[in-house]
């Protein structure tokens, strides 16, 4: 299974990066073919040789994280589209609102299933940015379009249910502090792909 992980940046010590690193390394250990696509902020990262990492540049400074992120997503899409010229992919797995808009459009264009992990919602962060409404809209759109949404813990799940109006069955808690979380995610990938196969056959 070829899995594309989308993450804002990929560097040692960063929470989201460590999450993606751990998940990608586990997927590789199970015989899958993971590829991490992230913005190149120049920082170091260490990861198993079995995990492919593609980083891209962005020649744009925004006046806010939101404007920067929207343009970053464009470069991210370009990198993924460039990748699939050589090989097909099976699953796109995005992380948080910051990669959601690109992931949604890639999933629709490439007709590949989308998984989204929400590590923390904008509601949990306290709506402190001038673009909080827009960020929350992107979270909603990502969770609405995704084939499966993973919550990092029960608090995130509660926020997804109450703040973003998701239904209980749409959210799967995969807590990195609990044993077996990577396996839970891999099994979900398989389930999604099996469902797609059945739909295609039907």
């Amino acid at each position, binding site marked *: 299974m070829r899995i594309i992980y989308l993450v804002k940046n990929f560097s040692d010590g960063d929470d989201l990066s460590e999450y993606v690193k751990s998940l990608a390394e586990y997927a590789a250990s199970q015989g899958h073919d993971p590829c991490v696509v992230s913005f190149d902020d120049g920082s170091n990262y260490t990861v198993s040789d079995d995990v492919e990492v593609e980083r891209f540049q962005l*020649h744009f*400074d925004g006046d806010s994280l939101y404007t920067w992120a*929207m343009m970053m997503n464009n470069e991210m*899409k370009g990198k993924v589209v460039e990748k699939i010229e050589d090989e097909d992919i099976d699953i796109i797995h995005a992380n948080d609102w910051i990669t959601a808009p690109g992931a949604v459009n890639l999933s629709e264009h490439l007709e590949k299933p989308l998984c989204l992990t929400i590590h923390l919602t904008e509601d949990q962060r306290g709506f402190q940015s001038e673009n909080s409404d*827009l960020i929350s809209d992107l979270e909603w759109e990502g969770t609405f379009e995704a084939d499966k949404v993973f919550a990092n813990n029960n608090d995130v799940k509660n926020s997804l249910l109450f703040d973003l109006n998701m239904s209980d069955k749409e959210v799967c808690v995969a807590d990195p502090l609990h044993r077996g979380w990577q396996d839970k995610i891999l099994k979900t990938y398989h389930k999604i792909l099996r469902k797609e196969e059945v739909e295609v056959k039907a």
Partner: protein
Amino acid sequence: MRPLFVTWEYPPYKAGGIAAHCEDLASTLADQGHEPVILTYGEEQETEYRDGVEIHRVPSTDSANNTLSWAMHLGHQIEKKAVQLAKNNNFDLVHAHDWMAVPGATGIKKTLGLPMVFTVHSTQKGRDGINGEYQETIHNLEWYGTYEANEVITVGREFSEEVKHNYNVPEGKVNYIPNGVDLEKFDNHTNQLNYNDYALDWEQIVLFVGRMYPQKGPGHLIEAMPKILDQKPEAKFVMCGSGATEHYKGIAKEVAGEKVHFPGYVSDQELLSLMKSAEMTVAPSVYEPFGIVPLEAAACQTATVGSYTGGMKDTIIHEYTGLHTYPADPNSIQNQITRALEDPGWTDWMGEKARERVEDNFRWEQISAWTTGIYSEALE
């Protein structure tokens, strides 16, 4: 060819000149056998077919706290629509119009793998300057658009140099293609102006058309009014346009009293009638990458007194199709308007020559053909 236009405004939504430019270019491309598709803003999702052009509107958001964030959100929605359309259509390229289209157009370029053409209608530096992070970001988006585009189009010859300089664009990537006018629209229009709604029979209308902002120079014209009226009391200034109208009206009434009239909202048809009836139009802009007013006036056989700046260096030929003034110089504006009023025969003759020049040089058929030439280069 099947170009995908990205523009934030398309008629009936109109704020500046981009909407009219896109409509005229797209409908002419369609007349010439191409299949332009427009992606633009609308209050709701809708599809419309007009003059051979397929128009898709998508809503943006009410949550954005400024135009920049609004444009980013719109760009995402526009790209989503393009991805849907691409399932049943093959597009040749994406054509972005000004900075607000850059997020959506570059997203389409990256996701669908299309070449990109970027028309720069004006620059942040020229419009308001770069005085903070917000304006810097718009400037960056303009740079990004020129960087990502395979070909860049500018609407003014002098403006091409500004674009190359501001964004360090390589010489061969920037192409000058002027705006045009739809002469049929002007010729099919019947002048039904009730002249006395604007001026007395013995008065001659000096018409300003444009947004009431410093960039368009209404203040310089107002400053020139008293001296013009001293010499030519038959002048009657009619100031049409949106923007800071009340501000300029207050100043103008103080210096020119009843000799200046701000009619407020004027329909497109009424505006054409005014242009046809005016002795001259005045375009006192300080910054004007192209400036459509002299061409529209010319289509009405009316001469323009306009600043020697930007596109008006090309669209007005001094003492032949109109008169040039020094930019931001009320004395110069006064001199040239007075000259035109002193010799109405000559002014009418300049109006006729302006019309001939528009017929020869600024037809959309020609502009559309140049544009498809640029498309071909982008596809190479």
